[in-house]
């Protein structure tokens, strides 16, 4: 008896579901007949253009450090048995400590001297995936004096139209930095000002240096040269510490200046940070 009732209930539910499907389908057909111009998925082909990627959110407390050279690429020779790759690594360690103390998260391309270092393209890939607030490429030299801060030689990219903002535009690898050149130059000015306040001679300019052009973040190259005023070489620990503190102060100011990332239609709107 119970089995018979259950079967009857199932059959009744199936019949009701089928009737509902038929009713909805007839309603759609009727509406389509009344308004032929109304778009339907069957009439508009699926766009073959890839959807725009979600706008990456910059982490305002994330700094990317790239101690240049490494492995067989020793860079310049700064003195007797002093190699640029060792000086940049030592300075990166000092700068990372100072930045971490100031509340930054730091991503570096190397913490030691690997036998198989990253190529410039691989360094740029690491930086672009980090979505850092600032990307800093570190170099050292025995030529010149003070601290040299360089940005890319690319011309700033033209602002996009509002209509094309939703279109997916491929980013050329060789000119990826073009969209960030203005920010990079602002960052360089802040770094130069902070270095000057710390009584460190600083120089800004533009240089055709890899991987600056491939970075999708505000990016600068910082080259440490001997301090002509104090005769301190680039590998002097006190000199490096002085520079590290000045750069940290500048990056704190840079972090404060960065506005929260604007909400994008392609990206979900989250709670304010």
């Amino acid at each position, binding site marked *: 008896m119970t089995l018979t009732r259950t079967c009857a209930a199932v059959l009744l539910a199936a019949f009701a579901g089928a009737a509902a499907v038929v009713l909805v389908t007839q309603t759609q057909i009727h509406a389509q007949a009344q308004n032929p111009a109304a778009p339907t998925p069957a009439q508009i082909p699926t766009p073959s253009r890839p959807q725009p990627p979600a706008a990456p959110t910059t982490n305002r407390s994330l700094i990317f450090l790239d101690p240049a*050279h490494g492995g067989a*690429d020793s*860079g*310049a*020779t700064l003195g007797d048995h002093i190699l*640029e790759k060792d000086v940049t690594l030592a300075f990166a360690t000092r700068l990372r400590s100072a930045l971490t103390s100031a509340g930054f998260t730091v991503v570096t391309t190397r913490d030691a001297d690997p036998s198989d270092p990253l190529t410039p*393209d691989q360094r740029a*890939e690491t930086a672009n995936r980090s979505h850092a607030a600032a990307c800093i490429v570190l*170099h050292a*030299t*025995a*030529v*010149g*004096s003070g601290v*040299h801060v*360089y940005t890319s030689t*690319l*011309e700033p990219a033209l602002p996009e139209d509002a209509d094309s903002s939703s279109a997916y535009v*491929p*980013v*050329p*690898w*060789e*000119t*990826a930095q073009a969209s960030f050149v203005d920010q990079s130059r602002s960052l360089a000015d802040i770094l130069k000002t902070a270095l000057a306040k710390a009584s460190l001679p600083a*120089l800004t*300019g*533009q*240089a*055709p*240096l*890899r991987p600056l052009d491939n970075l999708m973040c505000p990016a600068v*190259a910082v*080259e440490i*040269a001997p301090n002509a005023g104090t005769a301190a070489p680039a590998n002097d620990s006190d000199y490096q510490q002085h520079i590290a503190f000045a750069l940290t102060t500048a990056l704190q100011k840079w972090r404060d200046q960065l506005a929260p990332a604007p909400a994008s239609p392609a990206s979900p709107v989250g709670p304010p940070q």
Partner: protein
Amino acid sequence: MIPRYQRILFWCLAIASLLMALFLIHGCEQTREKLTRHRDQTPLAAPVETPSQTVRLALANDADGSITLVERQIALPAEPTARARALLARLIAEYSYKDSAHPLESGPAIDDVFLLDLPLPSSIAAKDKAAAPESDIAPDAADTPSAYSAAPHMPGGQLAVINLRGTFADHHPSSIESETLTIQSIVGTLFANFPRIEQVRFLVDGQPRDTLNGHAGLARTYQAVNTATAQGTAQ
């Protein structure tokens, strides 16, 4: 009293010495005539008096990272490629002076300069594109006009290919500033003296090279622009 046989021997030796001296003098005369005759047959180019002219050099300064245009009076050949090569050789020579603001080692730096009319022939452009760095994000990146354009901005535009010597590149001071200033100095000097040159590319010992000496990139096409940041005085 000298014995007779000794006198005979003496005169014989004296005559032999005289004959040997005459033979030697004769041989020297013949050799000199032979050399003179050979030298006379060597074709000699007629001497051409090239007047000095005013050129502008974009000189770099390491102290402030500036490029200053200065004028010099020098004699240059008329043929454009030889003229460009001589001009750049003079530019690099300026940096080997003792009081140079951008010191470089002395020695030959420029092997050749080639001036190619733009747009490049399709075969050369295809090779150039194939040699472009691969793109991970967008494969069409090599088509970006700023990087590998072969189209001139004006009719008659030229691409200058500077073939540097490997010894010059290897011994160049290794730093971002120094290498960048050297490239800007070369590009600025070409721009100031060769209005048809629109783009500049670099080779080292005839081969493409990533950097000059570890920093400034050489694997790109530089637009010939005014790189000077200041105007100097004539000397």
